[in-house]
């Protein structure tokens, strides 16, 4: 499944996820529920969050980072990474953490299984509200 279709399916299933962005590890946005400029800024901030968490990982001598959640009274930020992509999602306060992580991992797996990866994100059949970014 291409990134845009996977995000559209996720948005249909999850009532907790308010916005989601799928980006390559180099920071280029593949698909998002946000406008292009907002998606790019969200990706940039999430990348800074990941870089800081990775520095913490090195300091602690842990294995690679797989996911993180930042909770605030205003809402939560979820970031899940795989070898090629990063998925960033925002929710309201007090989400069901395990469910959101599961949904984001499923999202990344669906995109990774797609034969063309991000290229399929340009599929015009993608659902409403999902912004495609040609790579």
């Amino acid at each position, binding site marked *: 499944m291409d990134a845009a279709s996977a995000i559209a399916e996720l948005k249909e299933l999850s009532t907790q996820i308010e916005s989601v962005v799928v980006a390559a590890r180099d920071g280029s946005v593949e698909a998002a529920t946000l406008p292009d400029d*907002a*998606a790019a800024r969200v990706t940039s901030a999430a990348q800074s969050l990941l870089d*800081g968490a990775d520095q913490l990982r090195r300091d602690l001598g842990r294995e*690679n980072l797989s996911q993180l959640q*930042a909770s605030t009274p*205003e809402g939560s930020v979820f970031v899940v990474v795989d070898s090629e992509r990063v998925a960033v999602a925002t929710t309201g306060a*007090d989400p069901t953490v395990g469910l959101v992580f599961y949904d984001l991992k499923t999202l990344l797996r669906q995109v990774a299984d797609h034969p063309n990866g991000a290229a399929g994100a340009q599929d015009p059949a993608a659902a409403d509200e999902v912004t495609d970014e040609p790579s």
Partner: protein
Amino acid sequence: MSRRKLWVPVVLGAGSFIGTVVYRRRSVRTRTRLDVYFEDGSMVSLAAGSPDADRLLPFARDVLAEAGAA
């Protein structure tokens, strides 16, 4: 009405108000944190107020602000 009878509700009201403020502040602090998970299944939870959390949480607030503003 004696002076003591007047002070009892005032003291009770003030105590209740202070307790509510302290509880709300503590609740906000415990709800603000960063949980980092690693591939080996381990995780680290950083509470607001720790140096690492205070360094990284502004990025999360940026994400929320950008997503909310869109």
